[in-house]
């Protein structure tokens, strides 16, 4: 676990970088969920416990850097992680492309979980249109990011975690 901690810190650093970069862009663009590739990789290639730990850490970071209501990002992140734990034996990720696809689907699922949570807990969701508009572009962007992250994870695994 200690050996994997620098990767989580790197992921959080990337999330903070994304926040700083978005504020200097004059355009409204899709924002990838940087934590998702870490969570998916953790669950499918390391262990469910590490994936869940990553989910909690990234969800909290997102809540700290976003205007989301308290608990909503944590709920969505943990729900995605739990779904992946259940799907671990049924889903086979054989290449970076499958990994990217799973990442994209996870972002879509996260959006729908958030909407369902809002409807369930508060009986309404003012953000319905906003969440739906950005769900697909965010998923595509996270998918693209997943392609590169998978290569990075695999290389890091061979180089630094070969003896784990």
């Amino acid at each position: 676990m200690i050996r994997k901690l620098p990767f989580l810190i790197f992921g959080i650093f990337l999330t903070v970088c994304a926040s700083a970069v978005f504020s200097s862009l004059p355009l409204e663009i899709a924002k990838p969920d940087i934590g998702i590739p870490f969570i998916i990789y953790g669950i499918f290639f390391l262990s469910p416990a590490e994936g869940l730990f990553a989910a909690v850490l990234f969800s909290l970071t997102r809540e700290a850097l976003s205007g989301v209501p308290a608990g909503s990002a944590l709920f969505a992140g943990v729900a995605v992680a739990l779904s992946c734990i259940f799907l671990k034996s049924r889903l086979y990720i054989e290449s970076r492309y499958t990994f990217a696809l799973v990442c994209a689907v996870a972002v879509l699922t996260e959006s729908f979980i958030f909407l369902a949570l809002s409807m369930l807990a508060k009986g309404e969701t003012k953000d319905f249109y906003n969440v739906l508009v950005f769900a697909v572009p965010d998923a595509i962007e996270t998918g693209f990011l997943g392609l590169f992250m998978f290569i990075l994870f695999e290389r890091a695994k061979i180089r630094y975690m070969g003896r784990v």
Partner: protein
Amino acid sequence: MKGTFVIIAAVLLLVLSFLLFTNIPVFQKGYARVKSGLADGIGPVLETIRLPMRAVSSVVEGYIDLIGAKRTNAELKETIGKLELETQKIPELQSENERLKRLLHLAEQQPGRLIAARIVGEDVMNWFKCVLVDKGRSEGIRERMPVITPSGLVGQVIEVSKWHAKVMVVNDTNSAVDVYVPGKNTRGIAEGTGQTTLKLKYVLKNDDIEPGDKLITSGKDAIFPRGFLLGIVIAVDKNKPGLFSDIDIMPFNNFRKLDEVLIVSK
């Protein structure tokens, strides 16, 4: 066995986050402390990252500004000539202004102390509109403080950590501001849509409002003081069924290009 333990932990976390989302005060307090601790750690990192970003963006902006600089220069020279003529009238206008103010017994409204802050980050999710500023609890920033620029209202502070504060921008779907049209007896609630424009709600169809009307905060929402510019009415639809008109507002601020803001301490 280990897998079962992880599943139980995940389910417990789901229940906990659901309770947090429903705003139960007992859970909220502890969770706010955890989040604040994390934000305290993130603050300096965010500020450090923003420094090279600012340098790069100023170089790019400088280059863009050079394009068409010659034409702008000629236009500015012409404008200076006109302004010099106008300047001659200012002392006369100032004395007239003072005289009229005294006549009407208008006390100049003093806003609270203004704290200048720089934008260091933006919401990492598209679902909400918020920005992070580089002033926090240590500079006296508190929740619900209004945030403005010389152009108009930006939003309100919703979360404060030691190093930075989170500002909910007025176009966030959870934002609502009580506004009125100066000179007309028309009031309404400007609500964020998550898009560039805002919606003015609860304005009756027979109320006097038309495109081009400026909207100013009324101070009746107990968050934003009276007199801050919010935006301009761009469309009024009175053909919609129901009691109220469908009104679109364009805020004076371009929230995508904010760099510095002023926080009004109460």
